[in-house]
């Protein structure tokens, strides 16, 4: 029984660490900012998720203490990570838009415009009474 537990825990830990490493590797090897932004997602989701699950099991099954903080860590990361990604993407779009020297194009090229007349919020002030303008009250 402990053997199985050990295997499961070890597997989870290694899986998590592996995904963390792969994420960071992606950050290094992917060609431009937008692609690199995909790397860390692995670390936050499966990487840390597996690690934390391994930790919960480890403390519960091997050390006999119930520890639930790992779940909270995941919860907070799930709330915050997309925001970070969103803001970084905006930075990229903005720098691209304003022609900053250090901002090489993504291989996806510049983003197409939404619809016919509007533009993305990074480039145009969000219009009143739309979801995008919600905080401007």
């Amino acid at each position, binding site marked *: 029984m402990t053997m199985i537990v050990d295997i499961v*825990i070890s597997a989870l830990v290694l899986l998590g660490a592996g995904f963390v490493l792969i994420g960071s590797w992606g950050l290094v090897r992917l060609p431009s900012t937008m692609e690199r932004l995909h790397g*860390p997602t692995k670390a936050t989701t499966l990487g*840390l998720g597996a690690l934390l699950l391994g930790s919960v099991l*480890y403390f519960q099954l091997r050390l006999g203490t119930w*520890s639930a*903080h790992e779940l909270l860590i995941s919860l907070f990361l799930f709330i915050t990570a997309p925001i970070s990604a969103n803001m970084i*993407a*905006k*930075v990229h779009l903005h720098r691209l838009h304003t022609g*900053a020297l250090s901002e090489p194009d993504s291989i996806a090229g510049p983003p197409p415009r939404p619809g016919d007349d509007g533009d993305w919020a990074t480039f145009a002030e969000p219009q009143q009474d739309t979801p995008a303008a919600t905080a401007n009250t």
Partner: protein
Amino acid sequence: MIAWALNIASVAVALALLLNGWRLLKGPALGDRIVALDTMVINVIALIVLIGMIGGNDTYFEAALLLAMVGFVSTIAYCKFILRGDIVE
């Protein structure tokens, strides 16, 4: 076995940390550096968890929890600074 796994895992995450550092130094885009920093935060959380497991001590998890909660604030602030200059407006 778990000890082995934990050791290997921490080496892996430490390696990941160095990879982040490389990207951080290299850039070239500001966005790249910010992503690298943001990822570093994630990796440090992972390391804290691993350190806790290696020591059999769950007292460090609050640090990880706090980092998960407030670590992104600096990322956002950096982004907001580039986008708007003024981070509070």
